């Protein structure tokens, strides 16, 4: 079958907006590269933006050794964050989602532009306005949440929704690699972790984000958010669930899941 990245993007967009599963692209199209996958992602996101969604930031994925090993890679991936994906209050409706999972993250919010292949952690701190506890809702459009690297990149790195806590913090208030995180589901502890689960330190995730964006001629713009990556494994959620995520010293997010 001839490769038409644009028609693949059409297909993904249909499944994302209709919340229906599809079979892995890599089972059906031969020879798709990582660069093709990012192009499919970009084309898909353009469709949302043509309908009024705004690009508000980026998300990092595969930021832990364990996840990289599970798809057989040694570097992270990224996806787009759109205004339509942001929850304005901590209630997650299952409408429009297939088999969503929730993971705790540290979000960075930027006051100045970050670009270029040689960006350092120092540059990131200098450009950061604040850090905020966050929760990302990932929802692979592939059957059984199962994919290869190329599939997941094309599917916007599984990103679906995100929520940032009300309270922001100075990036210097905490050692972000040692911030402990406890995730409870309906009162029971289901996951714990610390910031170092994200590439050793969440700031390194932002450095990687900028380097990868540079490859595609993009950047972190002022006002943008970067979700740095899951601090624990993601958990499946269902209507009626209450998920509480406590960040040491940074407060908690209580997320309610509804129909």
């Amino acid at each position, binding site marked *: 079958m001839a490769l038409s990245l644009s028609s693949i993007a059409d297909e993904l967009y249909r499944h994302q907006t209709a919340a229906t599963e599809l079979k892995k692209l890599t089972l059906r199209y031969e020879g798709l590269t990582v660069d093709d996958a990012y192009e499919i992602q970009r084309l898909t996101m353009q469709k949302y933006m043509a309908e009024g969604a705004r690009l508000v930031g980026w998300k990092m994925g595969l930021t832990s*050794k364990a996840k990289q090993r599970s798809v057989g890679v040694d570097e992270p991936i990224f996806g787009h964050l759109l205004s339509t994906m942001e929850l304005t209050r901590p209630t997650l409706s299952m409408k429009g989602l297939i088999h969503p999972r929730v993971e705790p993250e540290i979000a960075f919010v930027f006051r100045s532009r970050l670009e270029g292949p040689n960006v350092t952690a120092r540059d990131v701190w200098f450009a950061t306005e604040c850090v905020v506890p966050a929760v990302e809702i990932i929802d692979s459009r592939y059957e059984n949440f199962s994919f290869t690297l190329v599939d997941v990149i094309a599917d916007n790195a599984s990103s679906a929704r995100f929520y940032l806590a009300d309270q922001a913090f100075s990036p210097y208030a905490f*050692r972000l*690699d*040692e*911030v*402990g*995180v*406890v995730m*409870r589901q309906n009162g*029971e*502890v*289901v996951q*714990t*972790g*610390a*910031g*170092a*689960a994200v590439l*050793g330190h969440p700031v390194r995730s932002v450095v990687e984000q900028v380097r990868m964006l540079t490859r595609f001629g993009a950047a972190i713009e002022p006002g943008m958010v970067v979700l740095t990556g899951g*601090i624990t494994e993601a958990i499946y959620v269902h209507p009626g669930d209450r998920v509480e995520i*406590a*960040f*040491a*010293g940074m407060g908690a997010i209580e997320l309610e899941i509804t129909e």
Partner: protein
Amino acid sequence: MSDRLEFLAEALWRAEREQAPIQPLTDQHPDLSVQEAYRIQLVNVKRRVAAGDRVVGHKIGLTSKPMQMQLGVDQPDFGHLFQSMWFESGTAVHFPLIQPKVEPEIAFILAEDLVGPGVDLHRVLAATRAVVPAIEVIDSRIADWRIRLVDTVADNASAGCFVLGHLPTDPSGVDLETVGGVLKLNGDVVQTGAGAAVMGHPAKAVAWLANTLTELGTPLRAGHVVLSGAVSAAVPIQPGDRVQLSFGPLGGVEFVWAKGEGSD
């Protein structure tokens, strides 16, 4: 004490002395009860004391839901800690180990006896002189870690040795639920977790231990060390490995596993 329990205790004792793991006790004795397993453990505790070692505290195991589910139980277990197992942070650990794994934990050092029944989280915190970060090195005298609950209980809850950090922290000044632990092996992050992984709060595990030991007639004593349970999955180590744990405000602890001479 039945001959059978003495015999199984002897087998575990020899396995440890000779660094030669044995088959699971439950292979030959599927009917062994948990109570009998603790009696086997106590036979070897007495043997160790008779050989000149000293009990310095306890370890709590199976404190997380995933571990309990893996062994099909709904309660933690415990083992005994000895003076000979105790290492200070920053040292090379010479200790005979068969198939060791490391776990990040919070250790409680008690200022008062903790006698049940009715010991709860608040009583534990009030009776605790200090909490310190700890790396527990677990080990099994059962081949390939093929353990069921009864096997690990009989085998001193798979205790190996332990390394304590230097910074004693007053437990009233730190949130032990959200305090985060980062475990590194030879410089790479291999596990992270937070205190709540241990029964929702590590002091709850200590409370469970205090009440359980009171029932058995050997309550927790002032000065004892309690390893409260792992905040992440265990990670296997090899000779020469450097293991580091940082526990946020509780400080850090590290050691190098030096296999070989210097151990008995």
